């Protein structure tokens, strides 16, 4: 049972570290927003009377020192209260909660596409190293890394929504027919566009780690004892090659979440990314702060999931 304890300790360590990252993100955001010139303190910019200004300063607690306000904010945040949106006066937590499922659906689908398409592409490249298919896929990955997501989105709309007219270009669902098939059709283009933010990196990682694994002694042993090539690759090479790929995917999640802002803007997807854009345009400080913290928390949770997966596929984590 020592093994179980080791895993628990490893995961608890990761959990504590993740919590620290979220606190760090919230502190960075909160202090920046409240100390930088042009923050909420410049409610003076708002076109209001002196009394209204006083009321605003009182309401937002701007008359108290920033560290004190941060501690209060953090305490409230731990109870699910992220303050109120300046633009709509609704609780920030409610506004984020309304959008959260859409963003998770979009980012989750994009992640799934990256894994399901990216790993086989990388493995094929590794197995056919130096051949035409390897070069073609390398070039595709390089282009994928260079294409701006929003432009790819516009091009996808141009091809599939305008020219071919086979997929919808905006929104989560059609007002007329809100079926699962309709929702999936709406998801295809944004998910594919968002997936390109990390797919090429997944392919590259898989390729290089598979090539490395194929050079190992145990692969030569497996081949020389007469195992079928397919068994050697699937049972011996891939299992080891995928370990670094899993941790790379964990490290790519922040990039994927960052990509939701642009993707949701292009496809009119009502998620957290577009909410963040509205918050930035409307200078809604509580909202943009809350969003950043929630997104950081999502990224941290994703990396915890990766850590759990890690303990499953890499026995060394369990034993060491």
């Amino acid at each position: 049972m020592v093994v179980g304890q080791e895993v628990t300790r490893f995961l608890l360590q990761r959990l504590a570290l993740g919590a620290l990252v979220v606190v760090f993100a919230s502190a960075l955001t909160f202090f920046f927003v409240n100390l930088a010139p042009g923050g909420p303190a410049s409610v003076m910019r708002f076109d209001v009377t002196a009394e209204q200004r006083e009321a605003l300063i009182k309401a937002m607690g701007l008359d108290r020192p920033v560290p004190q306000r941060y501690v209060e904010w953090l305490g409230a945040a731990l109870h699910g209260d992220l303050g109120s949106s300046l633009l709509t006066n609704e609780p920030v937590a409610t506004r984020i909660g309304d959008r959260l499922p859409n963003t998770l659906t979009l980012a989750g689908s994009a992640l799934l596409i990256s894994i399901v398409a990216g790993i086989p592409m990388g493995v094929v490249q590794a197995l056919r190293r130096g051949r035409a298919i390897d070069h073609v896929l390398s070039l595709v990955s390089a282009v994928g890394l260079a294409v701006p997501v929003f432009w790819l989105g516009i091009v996808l709309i141009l091809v599939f929504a305008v020219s071919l007219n086979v997929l919808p270009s905006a929104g989560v669902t059609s007002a007329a027919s809100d079926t699962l098939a309709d929702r999936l059709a709406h998801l295809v283009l944004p998910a594919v566009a968002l997936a390109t933010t990390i797919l090429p990196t997944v392919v590259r990682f898989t390729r290089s780690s598979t090539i490395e694994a194929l050079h190992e002694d145990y692969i030569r042993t497996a081949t020389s004892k007469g195992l079928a090539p397919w068994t050697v690759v699937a049972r011996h090479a891939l299992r080891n090659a995928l370990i670094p790929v899993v941790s790379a995917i964990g490290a790519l999640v922040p990039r994927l979440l960052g990509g939701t802002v642009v993707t949701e803007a292009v496809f009119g997807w009502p998620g957290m990314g577009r909410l963040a854009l509205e918050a930035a345009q409307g200078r809604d400080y509580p909202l943009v702060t809350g969003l950043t913290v929630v997104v950081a928390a999502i990224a941290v949770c994703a990396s915890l999931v990766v850590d759990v997966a890690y303990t499953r596929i890499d026995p060394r984590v369990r034993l060491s």
Partner: protein
Amino acid sequence: MSRFGIVALVVLLAIAALAIAGPFLWTIPPEATDPAHGLAGASAAHPLGTDELGRDVLSRLLHGSRVTLLVGVAAMLAALFIGVVVGAIAGWSGGWLDALLMRLTDAMLAVPAFFFILVVITVLGTGVATLVLVIGALSWMPVARVVYGETLRWKVAEFVVAAESLGVPAPRLLVRHILPQAIPSLVVSATLGVAFAILTESALSYLGLGVQPPLPSWGNMLQRAQQYVFTAPALAIYPGLAITVVVLAFNFLGDGLRDALDPRRRR
């Protein structure tokens, strides 16, 4: 260097030449509007057509290339500066300062930078200088890691220990003896950094939070183009193609330089 790397270098030099000389050779002002001839197709007067306000697309692309490339390079320099300072101090000092700075670097990498960028722009507003600083302030982490690794590696080298025992002060040791060892890695990081900065700038400008019209940048040219994607699809094609080509070239150049400068990776 690899063939791809050399081709990329040639492409980038050609684009730089166009950015410098283009606006002198193609003299239609990028801000000149002509609403009567908006959304026009290609013609002798406007080889790439006009946008919704009748502005010449070729002229806006040429002027936009200056803005896009300058912001990209400036943001990369900002990231390089912060990354070198953080990495060198952490690597040289060791102890709690090392732990603090490198955990900070890890934490910055663990949270989605694009949301932080939105936070900064919410507070500071839009502007070219803000854009450069914010992209730099949120993309220095890979540089810091590279410099940190090189500093750790070289601070125990004999020539550094010798210089130290002669009484050379730490800042001078870092600048004269250790950082020069990191130059090859930094050249690679810088090249890839420009690509990242250009992608970030164009995304922000597309969202209306970056370079503000009438000043053209490749990103903000795409901002309005999406509305006209049904009537004038070409408007959306050129700037995006330009961004893709430049970013691709910087990435290929970076990869080519890495292979050329680091023989261990050649296999």
